[in-house]
């Protein structure tokens, strides 16, 4: 098991956002957590990268090691990378500098030229806008930059937070296609949290359904996409 989350509880002051959520991801899988706005999806990802503290009984294991109390930057070193909600690129760094932040502390280990070539193949616009400040990019370009910033370090698992939010439908399709390719062709393990259930279920192996901070359903994506309740609640069919 690459990532194993046990009994995850997350509270903000008095309010509990996530109640005893457990899930796991195998190496090479593409897994989705789908749920409505406010179901606690982003909280779960933030707990995985160590930006939000989790409750006492909770534990997170990565490659068999307990990382529950590890600070954020050390989890990044271990190969957990995130594409944050709304991209959150560094606005006053250039596109190229944003990419370099992705391999902070790893420059000796990574073949930068080869990685850049590979990434520019997916996202040619990043090469064109190399020297531009990232706040001048469009929303879709910022999302591409955020994906590239996470991928440049050759992560063991890629966490993707609400990537469809604020993107044009056409771009949503393209971004999910790229995520699917990254998983199938390059074997990158991916965890997606999404409101856009249909788009993410289509490319996933497995999925969990999150409602009000609890997992209410799980299974193969191909099965869930046929499920009547899912179709009514999330697909609007």
């Amino acid at each position: 098991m690459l990532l194993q989350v046990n009994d995850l509880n997350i509270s903000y002051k008095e309010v509990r956002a996530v109640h005893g959520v457990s899930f796991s991801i195998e190496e090479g899988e593409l897994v989705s957590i789908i749920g409505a706005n406010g179901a606690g999806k982003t909280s779960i990802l933030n707990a995985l990268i160590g930006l939000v503290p989790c409750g006492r009984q909770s534990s997170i294991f990565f490659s068999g090691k307990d990382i529950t109390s590890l600070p954020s930057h050390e989890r990044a070193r271990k190969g957990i990378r995130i594409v944050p909600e709304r991209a959150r690129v560094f606005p006053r760094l250039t596109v190229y500098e944003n990419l370099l932040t992705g391999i902070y502390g790893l420059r000796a280990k990574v073949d930068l030229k080869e990685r850049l070539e590979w990434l520019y193949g997916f996202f040619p616009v990043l090469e064109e806008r190399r020297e531009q400040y990232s706040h001048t990019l469009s929303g879709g370009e910022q999302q591409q930059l955020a994906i590239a910033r996470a991928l440049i370090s050759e992560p063991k698992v890629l966490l993707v937070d609400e990537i469809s939010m604020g993107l044009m439908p056409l771009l949503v399709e393209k971004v999910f296609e790229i995520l699917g390719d990254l998983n199938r062709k390059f074997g990158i393990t991916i965890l997606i949290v999404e409101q856009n259930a249909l788009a993410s279920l289509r490319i996933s192996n497995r999925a969990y359904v999150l409602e009000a901070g609890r997992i209410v359903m799980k299974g193969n994506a191909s099965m869930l996409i046929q499920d009547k309740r899912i179709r009514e609640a999330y697909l609007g069919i």
Partner: protein
Amino acid sequence: MYLFIEQSLNGLAVGSIYALITLGLALVYGILGVLHVAHAGIYTVGAYIGYGVYACTGSLVMAILVGMVACSCLGVLIERFIYFPLLKFPPYVPLISSIALFMGMEEFCRLVAGPSVRTFSLELPFPELKFLDIVISPTLTGIFAISATIFLVLWFITTKTELGLAMRATSQDMDIASSVGIDGHRIIDIIFILGSAIAAVAGILVGIYYNEVYPAMGTVPAYKSLALIVVGGLGSVQGAVIAALLLGIAETLLIGYANIPLPRDALAFIAMIAVLLWRPQGLFGKGA
């Protein structure tokens, strides 16, 4: 003409020293969002340590080095034990503690070294420069050389090195910076080390240039440097440096050369009020 050039050079020296003090303040504000008033306290302590070491050893290099190291430690202590625990509160909480700390440091200097003015009475060991009729004294040359070196080194670190990239990333989004593997605490430590070491140099240079070290020497710089980071655009380090250089020249020329009947220290605050009225994001700020 001769007087004009001479006064401009004096102004540039004063401005360089302002810039050295303001640098630390701008760096700290950029990364923590804290108005680090106690920075001027570090500057005063640096001047005293420099004075003390110089009086004991007679070595200016020693004085500057010891001052830099001691002030770096002091800066990191303040950051770790005062600002960091207070960051979860609204910004006025660390601000109030910073003002209190500044007053405490002033009084501490008064207690240890006494209220009287100490004098360095030496010239910086730099050559005297002559262009036509204009003579630049060794101390002035030294101030230019030292501050230019510091600006260049800092510019190189922030724009050309991986550390600088991490510093800029952390100041723009600390959470995301840590999610790409940057240890934010370490970066903050480094910023306090750099800022405080530079403040120590500024304290010692002021001590030599004005030939006086006294407990309240940080008071005017404390508030002036606050005005300067507002004028430069909060969080913009280059803006703060340019504003500081301009202020030094403007103060010296308008009051010393043009004899405008204003208290010298008023100018910074007039500039701040003007900026707040007409360009609240600062001269070099990035949009409102």
